[in-house]
């Protein structure tokens, strides 16, 4: 083991720091999300995107109910905590009263696609100038891995133990594709955080979504596929592969709509 290098302190020889622990808009490094969770990775990119568009001092976030909710208290932008499903409506009220701000929502798939499906659809249809971010892992992580409206066929969850069966449980909703069809949606994309390249691509999507809002083009939406090894009952190290192969084969990654952009 003699070739293990010291990593507890910055290098003593001349070197340039190219990336730090956390985005500036995060107040603390610690959080209580599970090992291998994809949500903090997506949230890092969201905060970096806010910094990239220079909206640190005029951003208001609306947070739904899910594992990421606890993470929210450590984000250094103004926040409104909404109920399960209601974030797009709450964001609508925020944006209408504070049109000069950058308004984003953060919801999980249970929050957005189960409980609040009509709210996000109507918000998109109205072309509301907000950016809705979906952290999609196909399960209710916080309750312990139950089936959601985005769980893919064959996926095992606590209430689809033999795998989601179309005849019994119905089909998953591809929410990004659904929202992209609406006239009020100016930008829609689906990213993933299963590897470094995907994380970087997701960061670009988030930035484009925020830019869409800044330009007043309409509703913008980014869905981020995230790992939930705890809710999927698999080892953390297998999370990225599972996300890519199982979820990513149905919820296909890529930009879904880019209206009048650039």
């Amino acid at each position: 083991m003699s070739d293990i290098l010291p990593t507890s302190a910055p290098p003593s020889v001349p070197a340039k720091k190219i990336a730090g622990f956390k985005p500036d808009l995060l107040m603390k490094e610690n959080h209580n999300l599970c090992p291998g969770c994809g949500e903090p990775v997506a949230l890092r990119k969201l905060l970096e995107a806010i910094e990239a568009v220079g909206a640190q001092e005029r951003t208001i976030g609306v947070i739904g109910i899910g594992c990421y909710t606890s993470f929210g208290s450590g984000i250094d932008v103004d926040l409104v905590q909404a109920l399960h499903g209601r974030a797009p409506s709450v964001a609508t009220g925020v944006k209408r009263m504070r049109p000069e701000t950058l308004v984003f929502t953060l919801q999980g798939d249970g929050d957005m696609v189960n409980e609040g499906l009509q709210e996000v659809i109507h918000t998109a249809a109205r072309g509301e100038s907000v950016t809705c971010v979906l952290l999609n892992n196909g399960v209710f992580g916080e309750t312990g891995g139950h089936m959601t409206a985005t769980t893919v066929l064959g996926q095992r969850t606590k209430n689809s133990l033999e795998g989601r069966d179309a005849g019994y449980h119905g089909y998953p909703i591809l929410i990004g594709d659904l929202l992209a069809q609406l006239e009020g949606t100016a930008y829609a994309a689906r990213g993933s955080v299963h590897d470094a390249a995907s994380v970087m691509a997701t960061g670009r999507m988030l930035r484009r979504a925020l830019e869409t809002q800044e330009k007043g083009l309409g509703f913008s939406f980014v869905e981020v596929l995230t790992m939930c090894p705890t809710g999927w009952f698999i080892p953390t190290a297998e999370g990225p592969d599972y996300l890519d192969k199982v979820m990513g084969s149905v919820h296909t990654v890529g930009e879904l709509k880019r209206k009048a952009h650039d």
Partner: protein
Amino acid sequence: MTRRLMEGSEAMAEAAIAAGCRFFAGYPMTPFTELLEGFAKRLPESGGACINAESELEAVGMAWGAVATGARAATGSTGQGLSLMQESFSEITRAELPLVIFNMARGQGDYYQSTRGGGHGDYRHIVLAPADAQEAVELTQLAFDLADRWRNPVLIYGDYLIAHANESVDITPRTYPPLPPKDWAVDGTLGGSGESRTVNPLGVDKKSLGIDPEGLWNRLQEKHERIECEEVRVETGFTEDAELVVVAFGSVGRFVRHVVREMRADGLKVGFVRPITLWPFPSEAVAAAAHAAGRVAVLEQNAGQMIDDVRLAVLGAAPVVAIGGISTDRSGFGVGDLLNPAAVRGRIEGALSTGGNFR
């Protein structure tokens, strides 16, 4: 001349806007619809926004967001629609947001819903029950002041008659004592400073980096106790020498007040107590009137809901009888046979002469 003849709904919308309301969201439902129309017509020209929401759930969510920014905002519906909004009301109250809510109810069957906190958890709304359009205008303006003063939702309990009768009203904005600054509201400007804000129903303080539900609960309960001490409003009439006191609220209270005046003119010793705040309930006024008269009748347009509060106020010191009942028409808007001075008089005379069905 400052009085104008206006439909109650229109007057309430104008009064709200005169009080600084800049956001409204609602979903059409009779007899609430005209209030929504009033806001839709007048808010844009006042620099505000009125959204014809796709459901009551969305309406309350939008109002929630608007009020979180520090704007004066309101939503409403009939009791049916408010049932859909209750989950949000619970959270909005716990987030200490000054939302104003209009219940243009179909009758008085929503008394429990309004005063007990129709949703989950321990909470109360200040509930104001106007008897006519002028009072509806005044209570609408007061509602925005009370909501901001206490950082607590205020609900206005109206009905079909309040909504649809045209009356002479004066909408001149009232002035109130200075309010505390809204230093809790989100405007985005503190991002990245380490001082950014969070509006939440969980007792989260960003500095503490955790939730404090017990601290939040204690603070809310202490606030609600102070509201109970300071915000009781009630109208009483002829209670000093009454042999029977009739308790009624809202439009029904207006019928009772009118009929009691007529009966007094005819030499009958009846009095009335009309709670203007349903919560906090004017227990002391009810108790004093009951002790003086020795008999209490409650006339409400339901199977007996406010009568619980009357009995709690009277604490067995006088018999309390229900002389109301449902009063509906074919349309279900709560305008039925009981809403008639002759019918109201019949009920009160029954209680006065026979003692009624005192339980």
